[in-house]
């Protein structure tokens, strides 16, 4: 894909926005989906990764699911 405006400041802003989105998502226990897909493609090329929705639900269940520390937050 060609980049219409690849000035450094534009790239910086894009990277910042991406990090901001990741931060907001991880605050509520959702890791980065794109990273997960890339990881699966790299390490388990034979497996089909979960769809974004499946991934979301999988992580939501994990956060509040079974286990002593699951879904735990501080006072």
């Amino acid at each position: 894909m060609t980049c219409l405006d690849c000035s450094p400041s534009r790239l910086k802003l894009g990277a910042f926005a991406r990090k901001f989105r990741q931060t907001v998502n991880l605050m509520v226990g959702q890791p980065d989906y794109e990273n997960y897909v890339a990881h699966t493609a790299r390490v388990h090329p034979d497996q089909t990764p979960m769809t974004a929705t499946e991934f979301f639900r999988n992580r939501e269940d994990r956060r509040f699911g079974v286990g002593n520390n699951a879904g735990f937050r501080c006072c």
Partner: protein
Amino acid sequence: MSYAQAGKNPALSWLVWLTISALGAFSLGTVALNRGETINALWLVTASVCVYLVAYRFYSKFIAEKALGLDDSRPTPAVRRNDGLDYVPTDKWVLFGHHFAAIAGAGPLVGPVLAAQMGYLPGMLWLLVGVVFAGAVQDFVILFISTRRDGRSLGDLIRTEMGATAGIIAQFGVLAIMIILLAVLALVVVKALAGSPWGTFTVLSTLPTAMLMGLYNRYLRPGRIGEMSAIGFVLLMAGIFFGQTISHSETLAPLFTYKGETLALMLIAYGFIASVLPVWILLAPRDYLSTFLKIGTICALAIGIAFVQPNLKMPAVSQFIDGTGPVFKGALFPFLFITIACGAVSGFHALIASGTTPKMIMRESEMRFIGYGAMLAESFVAVMALIAASVLDPGVYFAMNSAPGLIGTTAAQAATTISTWGFVITPDMLTETAKSVGEATILSRAGGAPTLAVGMAQILSGFVGGSGMTAFWYHFAILFEALFILTTVDAGTRVARFMIQDLLGNFVPAMARTQSWAANLLATGLAVACWGYFLYQGVIDPLGGINTLWPLFGISNQMLAAIALILCTAVLFKMKRQRYAAITLTPTIWLIICTLTAGWQKLFHSDPAIGFLSHAAKFSEAVAGGKVLAPAKTLEEMQRVIVNDYVDAGLTAIFIFVVLAMMVAGVATIRKAMANPNKTTRETGDDLPGLQPVKA
């Protein structure tokens, strides 16, 4: 490579740090030595920020490099076990957000508000000293220990490093703390909502809001957290605005006006239902909303204080350091250090630092920023809460936080009583304040949340909206606290349920089956019954309830911190790094002294307002003489007060036992480690090819 990013120009670096240190020292001096006149909140902010910067730059660096020997050439669990799900190497800023959102809760907002009765200075000093030498150290070292062991949990770590018995005792202690925590947080909500139709309506409106968000996220646009939260936020604001209409309506207001007892029963029922429902419908969406609201409000408060620059009206040190204060009884030592738990040092963080965070650390050196740094940020939240409580007129502060048994139930009585304490206030000022925040009365709204809300409303309305918005900001602040406390209540009930199933599973294997509905309902019922008991007891306690429960919570939280720090110390010895043991041993000893003294006084103090047993004795004596003492109205109620006293005393005794048992286990572990000439700790990754052995 050394991760200490030494400044490019050492001379300049020294100059900068010298300036920060001098500025910090000067601000602290101004705060500490200021007498007689009011002081601007900015002095407290400046002093705190400078202390945090210096502590982070020097002390945490020393811990990271010398004591722990963080080593970026060691692959972290996130790198070794990367699965894109639980174990993910994560950018340190992103992970900081995750960790901070998990550790920041209601604790650092409530404790400092209660402690403000002794003046702002003692609380502020403990917040700074505590976080630098105890709280941040604990979070950091536990994060380190867990990361070096594949992100194992605190209970697991104690079991493997200190033995099975210590593990079970700790597990039991954590459950007891959990119960008290849930009860006291629920009590804070009840105290804030009792007799307030506006607040009650707003909080109730979050239930359909959360369910709508849940359905939206489940069926319409899965995974769109941003959209969902934006919708939720708009509905929340609508709830606050509509709540005002409700509170002014003569037909609707009574529908949302409840007594504390009713609210407590509603909360207990709610806790049960919410924790057995599928998480996506209520728990998860509300968690998203409350997390973002929490972070947003903390930022807004920081900006508000910076812009408004309010003056503190509370004296630096009040006469109540002698232990006779109306908010909670007990002298400065040990009760200040118990009352302000979160913000200075919080044992709960040990559970977070050994939870999800260690599984996402990308490089070992980044633990310093995330473990130590995030705790400094939490301490700053506590300092802001202290400021918000101290900008209030002291008369208003004491009117809000004293029990009706002390100040009576009318503005006139309250004003007279409080003025005799030396904090001059008129009945008009009390009713005016109540009116300005849209409430019928502000008397005896103990629990910290309403006080913080009035303080925040004063600061934020000076920033946005002026005095016309005070009532809105007050209810916004109440909603914000209630929202994340309720999230903690149902998430915590779930956690307590799993803990109970886990513990009982040791004896009755069927109980451990988390898929079994019968086991689920039974364990959830047990969890709810436990915290519900303490909640109800707190609500009907005419001394305020917070009086009794907050110290118990503080003791238990500091006790958990002591346990975590004992583990840290034991591990340092096992690593043969005992040269640096003082880093964790000093706060351990301090916390043990504080919890044991406070526990002992809560049990045996001769003042019935402090000691549970002398309170029980006083009531038993009266019963024997056929007399009924206030607050009880019948002999039956007298009996109930006595039973409650014994239950509280029993719980305190359990806490003391847990601390002592962990101390013994810690000493035994350390002796064993010292008897062995070799390193006795085993970290995952030690045997990885190509990895340098850790230099002792």
